[in-house]
């Protein structure tokens, strides 16, 4: 009897200690959300939301300070969009090549290589962009500065490529072999099978990959801080320097006086960024769930 009770006590201890670990991340998440709201409350209660979101001037340290985030959001949008033009074709193209054309040997080294690319620290990308790519583009394109939205897009795009390539390749390989067999047995060639059966079947999986790549580009800080140029003005073109939201926080957090309106405004940027990436992740999750349903892999 005693042993039995001891056993059930032991099982209870295991169960609850693992449950605690599992819920720890939830606690962190709640803590972060709470902090973001509390710290940004000051600026939200002082400045009207529309002035902040649509305000065209970001002069946080000016005598009569302005906290218009429009230029920062435009910077983020521009750089992210540019990055998408780089990472979507390269990433999806890579996935298609690895999946369809590469032999087993090529696949065996290409896939891990891409994952290594994903593991390069972002500061290294930033350094590379600042020291090599920016001067090169400045000379090549004859632009006033190489540190601009274009360079940032390029580097960010390269950084997001492994995410897109790797997840797209996963999506392609989740397509059951039986679909390919059915298509080939009906007299389709490889190209038709790929474009008419495999890619449509993997379509929402590839979309998920692209959305997560986008999330990576939106949230990236170090690289854009180093190569985007840092001008908090609404960009008129792709070769203008910009200051995306993430790099604004990173650049200004050190000098902002704790408890000041500026300090609070930076938290507000953080909150907005958080909401954007949350939205991106939710969309990715919804799309990928539909993907599994479509392939009949259970709900």
């Amino acid at each position, binding site marked *: 009897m005693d042993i039995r009770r001891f056993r059930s006590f032991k099982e209870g201890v295991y169960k609850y200690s693992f449950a605690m670990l599992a819920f720890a991340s939830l606690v962190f998440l709640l803590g972060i959300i709470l902090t973001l709201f509390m710290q940004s409350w000051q600026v939200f209660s002082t400045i009207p939301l529309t002035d902040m979101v649509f305000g065209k001037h970001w002069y946080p340290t000016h005598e009569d300070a302005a906290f218009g985030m429009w230029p920062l959001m435009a910077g983020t949008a521009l750089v992210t969009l540019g990055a998408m033009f780089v990472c979507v074709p390269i990433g999806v193209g890579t996935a298609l090549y690895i999946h369809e054309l590469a032999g*087993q040997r090529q696949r065996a080294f290409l896939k891990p290589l891409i994952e290594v690319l994903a593991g390069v620290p972002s500061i290294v990308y930033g350094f590379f962009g600042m020291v090599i790519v920016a001067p090169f583009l400045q000379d090549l394109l004859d632009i006033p500065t190489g540190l601009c939205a274009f360079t940032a897009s390029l580097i960010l795009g390269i950084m997001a490529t492994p995410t897109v390539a790797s997840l797209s390749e996963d999506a392609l390989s989740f397509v059951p072999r*039986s679909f390919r*067999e059915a*298509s080939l047995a*009906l*007299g389709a*060639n490889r190209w038709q099978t790929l474009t008419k059966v495999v890619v449509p079947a993997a379509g929402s999986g590839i979309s998920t990959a692209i959305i997560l790549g986008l999330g990576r580009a939106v949230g990236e800080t170090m690289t854009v801080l180093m190569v985007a140029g840092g001008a908090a003005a609404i960009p008129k073109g792709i070769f203008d320097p910009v200051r995306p939201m993430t790099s604004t926080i990173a650049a200004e957090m050190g000098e902002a006086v704790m408890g000041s309106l500026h300090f609070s405004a930076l938290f507000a940027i953080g909150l907005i960024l958080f909401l954007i990436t949350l939205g991106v992740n939710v969309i990715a999750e919804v799309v990928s769930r539909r993907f599994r349903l*479509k*392939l009949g892999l259970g709900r």
Partner: protein
Amino acid sequence: MAPETKISARDVDFYYGRTKALKGISLDIHSKQVTALIGPSGCGKSTFIRLLNRMNDLIPGSKVQGSILMDGLDINHPKTDVVELRRRVGMVFQKPNPFPKSIYDNMAYGLVIGGIRDRDIIEQRVVTSLKKAALYDDVKDRLHDSALMLSGGQQQRLCIARCLVVEPEVILFDEPCASLDPISTRKIEELILELKQDYTIAIVTHNMQQAARVSDYTAFMYLGELVEYDRTERMFTVPKERMTEEYLSGKFG
């Protein structure tokens, strides 16, 4: 008195890498007859029929020797047009494998990739084939719903209909009822007997009774070899080989 030969295999060997999966198979498949291939798992029966539409091409490191002729066409000749071959030799797989598209798009697929654009022709051939596969009445009101909404048996009949739409001469069935319930199985078997009038059929089955019910000829294979090949009623009543008799009476399997 013997019906004419559609496909003639002579001394066919097949290798998966270094493993020899088929050993000197010689076998004639007769026109507009049902030929069943039976034998325990791993005997090479699926491997054999997958040679007839060159589905084994997809397996890296595989190799085939010997000759397989269909109406005089050397199936394994490097210059043989595989796309054309597969249009003439259709295949239905073990697990129903409709595409994640609508019923109509599943049916139209074979025509569209074959370059047929005329919508009226496509629609007409889709309907005809669905009727031939005894599926039309089940699906006529939901042709544009996803094919994955159908039951397993209906999905398999859709796969048969999808195969008919490109008007093949030969249909290969690779254990088509393996994942189906008895009622759906019976419908597929009735369908096979129906289709026999217009098509040459080869069916792989692990179910001896099924072979007895649907086939005119039966080939018994064991460990990559063809043990016995004869008319079905003769094979099931007076088998020549002792091994065939033992297998048919359930002594091993």
